[in-house]
C-alpha cells in the first residue's frame, strides 16, 4: 500500500459523494476512474473497505472503546 495513493483516494472520496457511492457499488470501476497506479493488494483492500462501508449504516467509536490495551 502506498501512502500517496491512500491520501489521493481518501481526498477524492471525501469531496465526491458520487465517487463514494460508486466505490460501494463497483469498487474496481471507481478506482479505475481515479487513474492512479493502484496495486493489486491496495485494490483488494479498497474493495474490502467498500464492501464494509456499503454494508454498514453507521458505527460509533463509542461502541469500540476499550479494545486497545497494549503494554507500551
Amino acid at each position, binding site marked *: *500500500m502506498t*501512502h500517496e495513493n*491512500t*491520501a489521493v483516494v*481518501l*481526498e477524492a*472520496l*471525501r469531496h465526491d459523494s458520487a465517487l*463514494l457511492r460508486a466505490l460501494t457499488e463497483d469498487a474496481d470501476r471507481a478506482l479505475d476512474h481515479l487513474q492512479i497506479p493502484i496495486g493489486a493488494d491496495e485494490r*483488494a*483492500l479498497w474493495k*474490502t*473497505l467498500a464492501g*464494509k*462501508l456499503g454494508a*454498514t449504516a*453507521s*458505527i*460509533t*467509536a463509542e*461502541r*469500540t*472503546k*476499550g*479494545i*486497545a*490495551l*497494549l*503494554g*507500551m
Partner: protein
Amino acid sequence: MGDGERATECHATGEVLQPQHRVVLRAVREHLRRCIPAGPLTALCERWLTQLEDHLQEHGSAPCIDVPYLVAQGLGANAEKTRTVAVFATSIFLGCDLLDDFHDQAWPRELRSASVNTVSLAGSLLLSVIPTLVIAEIPDLSDAGRFHACRMVAEYLQRMAGGQADDLRSPWNPELSIDATQSRMMAKSGEEMALFCHFSALVTGCDAHLQQECAQFGREMAMALQIISDLTDLFEKPVSTDLQQGTGTLPLALHLARLETGARKAFCGLWRESAHSPAARRRLQWAMCDSGAVAHAAVMIESYGERAKERLHGLPLHPASQHALQEEIATLSRYALAHLQAFLHHEPEKPSDPLFLHSRTLRKERTR
C-alpha cells in the same frame, strides 16, 4: 475468550470477570507472592494487576492476554498450558505497561512516592523473573526447548527495548517519517504480541515454521491495535500522554507527511502547545481529522487487520478459536470504519485558527 456465550454475557453486564481471566490473575499473584515478600514492590505490582483487573471487568477482554491465549487454545493446548501462556503474556504486558507509565509520568497518585529503584525492580520482576520461572515450569518441554525459549524471549525483549528507546529519542520531531514510525511501532508493539503468539506455538509443540507464522499473526494484530491505541490516546483520553511526551505516533506522522516544511514547523508548535492546552489539543485533533490523517490511519488499521485475518486462515487452529480471533479482528475493523465514516460523511466544525487555516491552504496547494 474461549467460550463465546459466556464472553457475551460478561460484555453485557460489564461487571463479571471471565473465569479464564480470574484464573490467570490468580496465577500471576501466586507467582508474585512466591518471588517477593510483602512490601512496596508487591504493592506496586498489585496496583498494576488491579488496574488490569478493572479493565477486564469493564471491557471483558484485553488483546495482549486474550490473543495468545486463543492461539494456544486453538493449537490444542490443555488448560495448564493455556494458563502458562496467559501468565507469561500478562507478566510481560504488565512490566512494559508499568515502565512505560513511569516514563510517561502517568503514575497513580498513591504511588508517587515509589522510588526509581522500586519501579526498576518491579519491572525486572515482571519482565524477567516471572517469565523465566514460567519457562522453567512449562509442562512437557525438554531442557533444549527451555534453553531455546529463554533465548527467544531475550531476543524479543531486546527488539522491544530498541523500539521503546527510539520512541523516546526525538520528541515533537517535525521530520517524523511514516516509515520510521512504522518500524518503531513494529519493534515496540509488534514484537510484544509476536513474542506472545510465538510462545503459544512453542508451548504447544509446533514446528519452527508454524511458530513463525503465529509470531507474524501477532505482529499484524499488534500494529492494528497500536494505531487504535494511538488514536484513542489522541482523541478519547482526558489527558494524552503521547502529546505530553511529544511521542511521534503514526497518525501524527501521516499528518506531517501532508504538510510542506513551513507548515510542519508551525504544526509542531501546535503539537507542543497541545501538551498542556486543551484548546490547542482540539485544534490539533481538528487538523488531523481534516487533513485525512486520521482516516488514513483507519485505512492502515483495516490493512493490518486484513493481513492478520489472512494469516489467521492459514493457522491450523480449532474452529472456536479461529472464530473468536476473527471476532477480535472484526472489532478492530469496526473502530477503523467509524473513523472512516466520520471523515467521509461529516465536515468537522472548523475552529477559527489562523495557524491551522495556513497549514490547510498549503496542503491544498500541494494536492493541486
